[in-house]
């Protein structure tokens, strides 16, 4: 190893990260044994969203591209699964995942080609517009997508048919499926961690920080953005595929811009300038939403207000603010 170890901002060394990640994974693994079934299922939703948010943040936090249309890829994943059930009569989760990934790759590759040539506002609105197109198509072609009624997805079989959903659905979801989601979450988090810490990840951050300079050190901007877009969309599509058996049903609203807004919100809530921010944000948001929806129908108002407040006063989100507080605390106790 070199005498001067790499110091990528906010991304700790592998050893440091594992020291935190492994205990957390262990704790998560204990959840079905400790919490009632509803608790595990709720957390499963949170972990699924965390995968989606991780994908989203590859674009925002690491590449500097703010997408307002990520609900489209979530929806593509979910509908890919639903359509496989409807037309191919398939029931294996592994096949679902393959189908969702394939569909996500196709759509994000296509959308990416259009969106990635532009930045900032144009990029943002283009992504919003394209997701609205998909949403409206899901409505219009109701004989395929089931329109507003949506499409049902039955309990899938896991690990190539080894574990089936026969029997108590709640028990299945809170145990077998929960562990499946947890494994997928750990795998996705690990994969994303490697990606952002790879030379490719560094190139993305360079593009984010200074597009001109990145070009002048030889990075071909469009290509890298396009690949980032692709990876981002596929992660989110995967999340959609994992979500739909939990929900049992997929409807067009998951492709609506309001859901994109939730993805943006949870990432900003957790802190988009950190790796763990989207994960924390997604899980916290999931709990927030579940309990708040019981209180008020003006969910958008709450979300919007908190987003504005976050951006005005706590732009680094939960993780960033916690980090700053911890640093202050450390300074005070040592000084």
């Amino acid at each position, binding site marked *: 190893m070199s005498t*001067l170890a790499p110091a*990528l901002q906010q991304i700790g060394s592998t050893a440091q990260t594992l020291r935190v990640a492994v205990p957390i994974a262990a704790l998560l693994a204990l959840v079905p044994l400790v919490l009632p079934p509803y608790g595990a299922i709720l957390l499963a939703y949170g972990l699924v969203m965390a995968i989606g948010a991780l994908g989203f943040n590859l674009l925002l936090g690491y590449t500097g591209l703010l997408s307002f249309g990520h609900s489209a890829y979530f929806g593509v994943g979910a509908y890919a699964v639903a359509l496989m059930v409807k037309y191919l009569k398939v029931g294996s989760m592994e096949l679902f995942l393959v189908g969702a990934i394939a569909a996500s790759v196709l759509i994000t590759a296509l959308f990416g080609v259009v969106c990635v040539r532009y930045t900032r506002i144009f990029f943002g609105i283009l992504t919003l517009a394209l997701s609205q197109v998909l949403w409206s198509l899901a409505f219009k072609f109701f004989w395929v997508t089931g329109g507003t009624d949506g499409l049902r997805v039955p309990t899938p079989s896991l690990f190539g048919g080894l574990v089936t959903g026969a029997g108590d659905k709640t028990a299945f979801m809170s145990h077998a499926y929960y562990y499946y989601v947890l494994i997928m979450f750990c795998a996705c988090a690990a994969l994303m961690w490697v990606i952002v810490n*790879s*030379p*490719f990840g*560094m*190139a993305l951050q360079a593009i984010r920080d200074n597009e001109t300079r990145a070009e002048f*050190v*030889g990075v071909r901007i469009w290509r890298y953005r396009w690949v980032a877009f692709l990876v981002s969309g596929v992660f989110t599509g995967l999340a959609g595929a994992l979500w739909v058996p939990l929900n049992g049903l997929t409807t067009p609203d998951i492709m609506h811009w309001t859901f994109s807004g939730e993805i943006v919100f949870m990432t900003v809530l957790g802190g988009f300038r950190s790796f763990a921010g989207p994960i924390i944000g997604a899980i916290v948001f999931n709990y927030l939403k579940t309990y708040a929806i019981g209180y008020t129908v003006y969910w958008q108002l709450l979300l919007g207000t908190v987003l504005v407040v976050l951006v005005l006063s706590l732009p680094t989100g939960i993780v960033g603010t916690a980090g700053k507080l911890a640093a202050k605390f450390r300074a005070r106790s040592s000084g």
Partner: protein
Amino acid sequence: MSLLVTKDLVKWFGDTHAVDHVNFTVRDSEVLALIGSNGAGKTTLVNLISGLFRPDGGQILFRDADVTHQSVHGRIKAGIARSFQLVNLFDQLSALDNVALTIFSRDGKTRNLATLASGDSAVWDEAADILRLFGLEAKARMLAGGVSQGERKLLDVAVAYALRPKLLFLDEPTSGVSTREKAPIMDTITSVVRSTGISAAIIEHDMDVVFNYSDRIVAMHQGTILADGTPDEIRRNEAVTTTLIGTTETR
């Protein structure tokens, strides 16, 4: 031997000839200063050669290959690199990261998204060496956005140097830096450049820097080359002294 030759290079901005049929050459292993008042066309010329702008006419030959229509990426691969007048760095990455990223890009390794960057010790070692060359090793772990202006200027050059170019364009490497710091910065830059045998073309306004560090001086005025020669020849050139007196700073 000519490393770089431009033939009748032209660039219009609206009605103005920013670069007007310029025949500019850079030879092997030389340090050249490009001088001229503001608006003379120096930065435009560098932008044309480095690929930021497309010319409206003329040719650019680098090591006998026609790079006039080459992409920026292609020119970097061919061996042309540059720094910027307004420092252009990756501010949220450390100084070491800035150089390392450049090396990863140079070697085509930025395509790897499945391996950890920290695992490639050859790259990090080389990055550390380059920082040492430029006297920046103490700031290796600091964010590029947080170091002093002089250090940022040097880092900007270090990043361009990390591309292992044959020709390095430096756009005002001492601008915005205090007088005391100018000489050490120029000493560092020229010693690195001369020891590796690469050529450097430096846009400068500070005449002390120009006369003390360059092998050859090219003076531009209103889009054309006014004079081209050694520092002594330029000093005695009346056209140069009359057009540039009072419009360039001499500290």
